[in-house]
């Protein structure tokens, strides 16, 4: 018998009904923080490419501005802004939690939901701004 198997009841209840298992809001905030972070690592390449074009010359600046007439470009920039806003809000929540606040079940769930609401609001504002 391995050490890890000692003192463990063999007949433990197993709950694997995937229809009833739900991620709590805190878990959703956590996984989306990771997803948005990885997305932005690649999105940053697009932003740096745009920065290069916007600063190289007056002509290339006009070229970057003309890019924004394209729906796909607007959509990608809006997506980047949404990921950025979400990651920033989730990060601020992390910093508050570092001080010992919002660590209880109730406050943790409430702050997670607040991050979602604020991120959606920011995403809508960003969408209006881009279009």
């Amino acid at each position: 018998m391995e050490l890890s198997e000692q003192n463990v009841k063999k007949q433990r209840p197993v709950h694997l009904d995937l229809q009833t298992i739900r991620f709590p809001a805190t878990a959703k905030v956590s996984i989306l923080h990771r997803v948005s972070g990885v997305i932005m690592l690649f999105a940053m390449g697009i932003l740096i490419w745009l920065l290069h074009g916007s600063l190289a010359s007056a002509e290339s600046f006009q070229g970057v501005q003309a890019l924004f007439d394209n729906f796909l470009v607007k959509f990608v920039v809006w997506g980047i802004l949404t990921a950025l806003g979400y990651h920033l809000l989730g990060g601020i929540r992390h910093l508050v939690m570092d001080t010992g606040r919002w660590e209880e079940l109730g406050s943790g769930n409430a702050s997670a939901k607040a991050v979602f609401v604020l991120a959606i609001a920011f995403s809508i504002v960003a969408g209006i701004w881009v279009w």
Partner: protein
Amino acid sequence: MVTNAASFGRSGVHDFILLRASAVILACYTIFLVSFIALSAPLTYEIWHGLFSALPMKVFTLLTLIALLIHAWIGSWQVLTDYVKNTALRGVLQFTFVVTAFAYLAAGIVIVWGV
């Protein structure tokens, strides 16, 4: 103490602090730049070029890209060590992510240098 050759800091505590310190710089730069673009609409080349020709803005930009390198390094290490159990694949992905972040820094130096 658990050490890992692929992590950025000397220890978990070091990573913890560096992740947050770099996050603060990234947040400040993001809020500043998005506010600047939003408030100076319609943005012209003269205004945009003028902003980046100032030395403090060049330093702020490069500081942010260094923070991005640190932040992305630690963040991708956390994600990869959780989900990618194959050591060879994880090593290749970590290498790709870190090289990408280094390339951003190199590109940023060249971009603001010429302004």
